[in-house]
């Protein structure tokens, strides 16, 4: 049993009662809502004659189905229009704030929470989306929930949970050139497995994590769930506070910032905290990492050979064989040179301003390969606006990228942004499951934004480190 960790403290601060099931009832400090997983929950709420208990602690946006091209209403896709209308109807009159496309604040739910300062350390945050773990980057306890639990939160402001174990993951050393947070988390999942985190919350720590900015920490916490951990977090520090100071919540209210800071500091894991497990990973040994298969755990360094299935642990052999057949890759070869048809720079993992800046810096003066369809989907309207103010859109467009409106887009193919047939994509998103990007024969290779940029230019999976010096100033 862990003791003195951020997880223990935030849990205790939000615990309302012990339930007869043995679960704890936890108060939810922030409930984020989007259009895909909430309509049924609002429906159940109405059926039971209940209303939203804590509307001021609830914030909605639209991201999963929203078009990233023409957004005139009604949407071209009738089903998407219906979902949008349903969300508008559900938030109307309920007191829930809605960051809709007209507000200029719309975006992927895990991008807008942090950028508006809704996400703060020491909070409990839930959303009907498994990537809610993203918000743990701020030292919040944040996790995805199902629709019946959304009903619970709407109706009571609480969730019923069993307490988990805590695994501290220390990533030591300094990350190499061309190595990003995305490569760190792909390496962690590769080492600990897609189900290694089941029953655990991950605390990310160590020099390689602590020296990351908030965007990198978000990329790491975002993919906790791909390693089976429902939540992951980084203890808040000066980097966290710097980000918070600039947000809507505190930019005009420095006194409120100072008032809350002691609380944030108080929830940080104690130096003598006890963990259920501790894992150490050498960050300096991590290479740019890509996936060769159809689970996020099937990753390798760009110079490493794709494993022979029979060399893997018995329980992974069949999955690996199926994955290699689907991806059409050969064991013993590297992923370098794997031809791609689509380059997707977007998603709640990697579509923040820093991600776009780094990719644009690489793309500048280069051109997208003629056989590649390349797109940039900013994480939010604010990211889009800030990027345009810096001229990043012009850089991408000049290179041949499509510059689109914010949303989840091709991460999960719920709007028109989808792979066609057996197209292969270099993708900055979080899941390479079969069918994930909209085509059941589609092939997804996960990688960092700069690796996506490199693949877009060469038309194949490329070691970005090999191309660095050719960059035009």
């Amino acid at each position, binding site marked *: 049993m862990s003791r003195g960790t951020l997880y223990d403290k935030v849990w205790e601060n939000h*615990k*309302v009662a012990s*339930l*007869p*099931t*043995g*679960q704890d*009832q936890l*108060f939810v*400090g922030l409930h984020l809502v989007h259009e*895909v*997983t909430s309509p049924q929950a609002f*429906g159940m709420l109405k059926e*039971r*004659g*209940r*209303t*939203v*208990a*804590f509307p*001021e*602690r609830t914030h909605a946006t639209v991201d999963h189905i929203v078009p990233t091209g023409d957004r005139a209403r009604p949407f071209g896709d009738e*089903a998407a229009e*219906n*979902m949008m209308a349903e969300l508008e109807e559900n938030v109307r009159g309920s007191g829930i704030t809605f960051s809709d496309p007209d507000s200029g604040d719309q975006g992927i739910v895990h991008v807008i929470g942090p950028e508006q300062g809704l996400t703060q350390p020491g909070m409990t945050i839930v959303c*009907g989306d*498994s990537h*809610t773990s993203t918000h743990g980057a701020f030292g919040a306890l944040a996790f*995805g929930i*199902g*629709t*019946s639990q959304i009903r*619970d939160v709407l*109706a*009571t*402001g*609480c*969730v*019923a949970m069993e307490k988990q174990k805590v695994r501290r993951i220390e990533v030591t050393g300094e990350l190499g050139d061309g190595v990003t947070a995305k490569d760190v988390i792909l390496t962690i999942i590769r080492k600990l497995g*897609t*189900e290694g985190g*089941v029953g655990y919350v991950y605390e990310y720590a160590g020099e390689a994590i602590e020296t990351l900015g908030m965007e990198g920490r978000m990329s790491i916490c975002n993919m906790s*769930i791909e390693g*089976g951990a*429902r939540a992951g977090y980084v203890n808040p520090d000066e980097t966290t506070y710097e980000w918070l100071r600039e947000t809507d919540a505190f930019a005009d209210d420095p006194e409120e910032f100072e008032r*809350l800071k002691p609380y944030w500091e108080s929830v940080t894991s104690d130096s003598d905290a006890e963990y259920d497990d501790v894992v150490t990973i050498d960050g300096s040994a991590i290479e740019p990492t890509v996936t060769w298969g159809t*689970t996020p755990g099937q990753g390798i360094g760009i110079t490493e050979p794709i494993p022979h299935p029979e060399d893997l642990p018995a*329980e*992974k052999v*069949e*999955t690996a064989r199926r994955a290699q057949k689907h991806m059409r890759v050969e064991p013993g070869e590297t992923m370098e040179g794997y031809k791609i048809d689509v380059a997707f720079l977007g998603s709640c993992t990697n579509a923040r301003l820093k991600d776009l800046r780094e990719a644009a810096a690489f793309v500048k003066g280069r051109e997208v390969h003629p056989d590649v369809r390349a797109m940039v989907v900013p994480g939010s309207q604010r990211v889009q606006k800030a990027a345009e103010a810096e001229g990043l859109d012009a850089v991408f467009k000049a290179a041949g990228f499509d510059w689109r409106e914010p949303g989840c887009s091709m991460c*999960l*193919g*719920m709007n028109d942004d989808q792979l066609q047939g057996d197209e292969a994509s270099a993708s900055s998103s979080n*899941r390479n*499951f*079969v*069918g*994930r990007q*909209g085509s059941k024969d589609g092939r997804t290779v996960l990688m960092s934004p700069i690796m996506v940029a490199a693949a877009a230019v060469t038309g194949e999976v490329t070691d970005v480190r090999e191309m660095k010096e050719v960059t035009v100033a």
Partner: protein
Amino acid sequence: MSDAIDHDGFADGDAPAERVTEVSGTGIPVRGNDIDTDQIIPARFMKVVTFDGLGQFAFFDQRFGDEDEEKDHPFNEEKYQGANVLVVNANFGCGSSREHAPQALMRWGIDAVIGESFAEIFAGNCLALGIPTVTADADTVETLQEHVATNPDAEIEIDVENETVAYGGETIEVTVSEAQRRALVEGVWDTTALMGANTEAVKETARSLPYIPAAHVPDEGSDVTGAAGDD
């Protein structure tokens, strides 16, 4: 135990959950580790505002080809039609939090799942629907899958309370997590009703948190759970 639960906080539409002490019926094996929720229900079928009708889309892309022709999949096989106990391998239901996945399985006819292990959010979503997710070791699960494949009409009895599964004349030990077992056996898996009964404690916790403005917590006496009924 459930008699001890205070139902005063229930809204008019809340009803105490049913007890799920055992599930019996015939089985259907779906083999493979890491079967994710995108496979259980592809995202394109989630552009809906109710869960009605999702059953037909369970495992859709594994079941049907480009021309809607049937592929080899247990959910297509005649011998498994009418089965209600799904038998799976490791890390079943990983990936997305979509409750559409267990909803689709439930609406296809599944009442319980036996597997080596389950992704947490998936198992939680199953519990919210009163569907047990029972675990056993890899060999035990594979043996059961074999049994089901060769005896598709054979009865499987899951005893949730005593954590056993009986089939083919033998009874095996399985695991049901403590919280899940209590929730199902005592009929307290409807957590909206359960937590709705703790109105005052919820407000007290909210007020104790420095980041929650006082104005965000409903006044004394008002019903934080928003139950519209005149209780």
